[in-house]
């Protein structure tokens, strides 16, 4: 794989590996002990490992120029493998977190196993590790096909992929060691945050350079969404990450914002992480793989434009709906609520555009589980966005806020939308880029689909019930004019729902296990002929 890099690229790769090792060494020396030193040693080990790997092929001959007549899919292959590995890990941890809600003593007295530490491991693992690797991998695939050009170079995709995964490993191992910024979905500390900025800028530059080489006159919708994902996530991450380290030799830092401003910035970030990471990026995925798999034209170009700009504009206003009935001024809450209502139509226009695209291909939806994954994803995208706008209405939020309804809502999005569309995209891509005729087993895709759907429905129905029950218990007054239930009674009442949610998680995890086996067997299988989309005539690199 490394031998596919040109000699110049290999030399640069060696230089980057040395720089990474030096960075790790500097961190370890500066910190001397504690999590930052551990992370420094990780970077050092990775840098040395990469240098050895690159160095062993440094003097090998240049790769054949015939590579320029093909798309560059090696990073996509590795990205898909990483996404599946992270998915298994993070969903497994999620199941454990769900088990802790039923059997709270299952931490066995170890701090790193406690709920507060493994819960962010689960959320980061699913959203940023499983989802992020899936987005990076598919974006490399999609931008090449829709631009009919090769990636702008062969080295920067590796920098993005390896760098991003180093960030993830730092994050996840940091949580277990007790490192956290205490900002939901933005827990990693300052050095990991800075590192992510470097990686993300490299990603943006690679994307723009590749788009600039496109052989198509227009930029396809999927690329609008991927670009919005890359650009806005950078802005969100940088602003929410403004923090002062206590010392450059330690992991702890404090945010520069204070009080309700901090809360507002955090939820402006938090909600738009949902919008531009979990929505925009995956819409890019859907907009490519759905028409390709269903062999149908996109139902409406105008709806694409309307929903893209609607989503991009309105989402940035709605973060304050996470802070209803708090110290946040009332007027900011009204803004968040009303923009959430206006956001509904552009969101539904996307879902509707996807579903209407399937007109004329319903037979395929019935017969092809891969396409069915994407269809269900579009349906759950529509359901989740409706639910989200509904929950943003203040009086509704008064019932739903702080309950497990919120958790159910997030999972209807994460399992029903994000994971489903990713599996559809992976099952479409894997045979193609590994040069196989089809996935190893269509039957296993069916199994995965039904396990995932059963798990998803079990999960969200149990948490809808749990959340509404909690919300009602917390607001029930008795005849004497006092709250009727103590908090602990509402916890007691959750037990059956938490057990059901755990079982839902078991089913969903079983599904991705089946998927991982199927992908593994496909990759290991006999090489066939898979027709790829043509590449435009390439100039020399």
């Amino acid at each position, binding site marked *: 794989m490394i031998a596919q890099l040109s000699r110049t690229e290999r030399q640069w790769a060696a230089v980057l590996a040395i720089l990474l090792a030096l960075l790790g060494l500097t961190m370890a020396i500066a910190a001397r002990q504690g999590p930052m030193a551990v992370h420094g040693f990780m970077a050092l080990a990775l840098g040395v490992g990469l240098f050895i790997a690159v160095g062993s092929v440094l003097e090998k001959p240049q790769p054949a120029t015939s590579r320029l007549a093909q798309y560059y899919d090696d990073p996509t292959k590795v990205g898909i493998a990483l996404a599946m590995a992270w998915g298994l890990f993070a969903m497994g941890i999620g199941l454990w977190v769900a088990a802790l809600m039923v059997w709270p003593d299952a931490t066995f007295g170890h701090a790193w196993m406690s709920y507060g530490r493994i819960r962010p491991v689960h959320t980061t693992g699913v959203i940023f590790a499983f989802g992020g690797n899936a987005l990076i991998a598919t974006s490399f695939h999609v931008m090449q096909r829709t631009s009919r050009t090769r990636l702008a170079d062969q080295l920067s995709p590796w920098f993005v992929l390896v760098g991003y995964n180093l960030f993830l490993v730092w994050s996840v191992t940091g949580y277990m060691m007790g490192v956290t910024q205490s900002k939901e979905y933005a827990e990693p500390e300052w050095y990991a945050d800075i590192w992510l900025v470097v990686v993300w800028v490299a990603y943006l530059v690679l994307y723009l350079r590749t788009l600039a080489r496109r052989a198509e006159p227009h930029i396809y919708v999927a690329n609008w969404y991927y670009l919005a994902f890359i650009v806005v996530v950078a802005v969100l991450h940088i602003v929410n990450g403004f923090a002062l380290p206590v010392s450059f030799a330690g992991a702890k830092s404090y945010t520069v914002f204070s009080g309700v401003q901090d809360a507002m910035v955090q939820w402006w970030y938090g909600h738009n992480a949902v919008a531009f990471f979990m929505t925009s990026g995956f819409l890019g995925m859907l907009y490519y793989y759905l028409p390709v798999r269903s062999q149908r034209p996109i139902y409406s170009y105008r709806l694409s434009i309307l929903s893209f700009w609607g989503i991009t504009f309105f989402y940035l206003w709605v973060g304050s709906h996470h802070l209803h009935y708090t110290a946040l001024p009332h007027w900011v809450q009204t803004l968040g609520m009303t923009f959430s209502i*206006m956001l509904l139509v552009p969101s539904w226009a996307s879902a509707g555009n996807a579903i209407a695209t399937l007109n004329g291909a319903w037979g395929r939806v019935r017969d092809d589980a891969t396409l069915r994954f994407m269809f269900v994803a579009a349906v759950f995208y529509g359901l989740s966005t409706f639910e989200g706008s509904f929950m943003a209405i203040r009086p509704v939020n008064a019932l739903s806020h702080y309950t497990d309804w919120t958790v159910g809502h997030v999972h209807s999005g994460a399992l029903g939308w994000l994971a489903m569309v990713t599996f559809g995209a992976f099952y479409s891509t894997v045979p193609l880029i590994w040069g196989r005729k089809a996935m190893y087993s269509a039957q296993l895709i069916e199994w995965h689909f039904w396990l995932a759907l059963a798990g998803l429905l079990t999960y969200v129905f149990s948490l809808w019930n749990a959340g509404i029950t909690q919300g009602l218990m917390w607001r029930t007054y008795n005849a004497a004019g006092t709250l009727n239930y103590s908090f602990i009674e509402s916890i007691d009442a959750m037990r059956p729902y938490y057990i059901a949610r755990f079982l839902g998680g078991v089913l969903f995890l079983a599904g991705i296990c089946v998927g991982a086996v199927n992908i593994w067997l496909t990759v290991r299988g006999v090489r066939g002929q898979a027709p790829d989309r043509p590449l435009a005539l390439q100039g020399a690199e």
Partner: protein
Amino acid sequence: MSKIERDPVTGYTTTGHDWNGIKELNSPIPRAVIIFIIVTHLAALIGWILLPTWPLGRTFTKGVLEVDQKTDLAADIAAANTARADWMARMATLDFDAIRADPDLMARALETAAPLFGQNCEPCHGKNGIGGPGFPQLSDNAWIWGGTSEDISKTITVGINSAHPDSRFAQMPAFGRDEMLDRTQIGMMTSYVQSLSNGFIANDPSEAATLFQDNCAACHGEDARGVEGTGALNLTDAAWIYGGDAASIWQTLMNGREGHMPTWQSRLSTADIRMLALYVEAMPGKLQ
């Protein structure tokens, strides 16, 4: 760029864009979408007119309704307090016998105290007051500081070993650590204290009984039945705070104990405390 085609399924033409085989239809935006855009935007507009919404430099648009969450909340709380004012005042001032004699007031007290107990007492004293290591059981008839509403309300108000100036105070000395008894004697006393649960034997000539009379009887009484209101436990019943097994008793004798119950005076109103006292007083009967 490909040519414009007509899609046979929908009847619409394509836009002419072609991305490596992906095409788009030039279909109009469905009427329903436009109607829903108008409806949602009108809803937002109505919200902006009625509610505080847009910032204007140092102030903001107040909205026709002139609502504000802070004043709304204050009004809600005031209204709720007014509705309860009459009977809550009686709860705070009548003596306990008078409250017990008023079935309506008593029903309100027990109904209100149940969630209060769940929020404030249950984290230590357990569900239904079953207690746990370090936290006395409230649902039995063994009381350390007294089991009447009067006693209980005082305990809740001032706490035990708390920061309250009138706090109840109790301390079990560290007989082992402070070298008042040696390890052999501690072991002997552990067995003896355990044996007390089967009954106190008067005029016991054993060495352990003598040690008990010399070291423990001053607080726990010559008959080991403790003295209610001093914090000295009755050692002859089945009720324990820190556990009646040999290891726990050994720990208690070796290192002493000094439990802590917070003062609730600043967190709960007088009426709340009195309702809780009535509720806790009634607890033993409820479980049996």
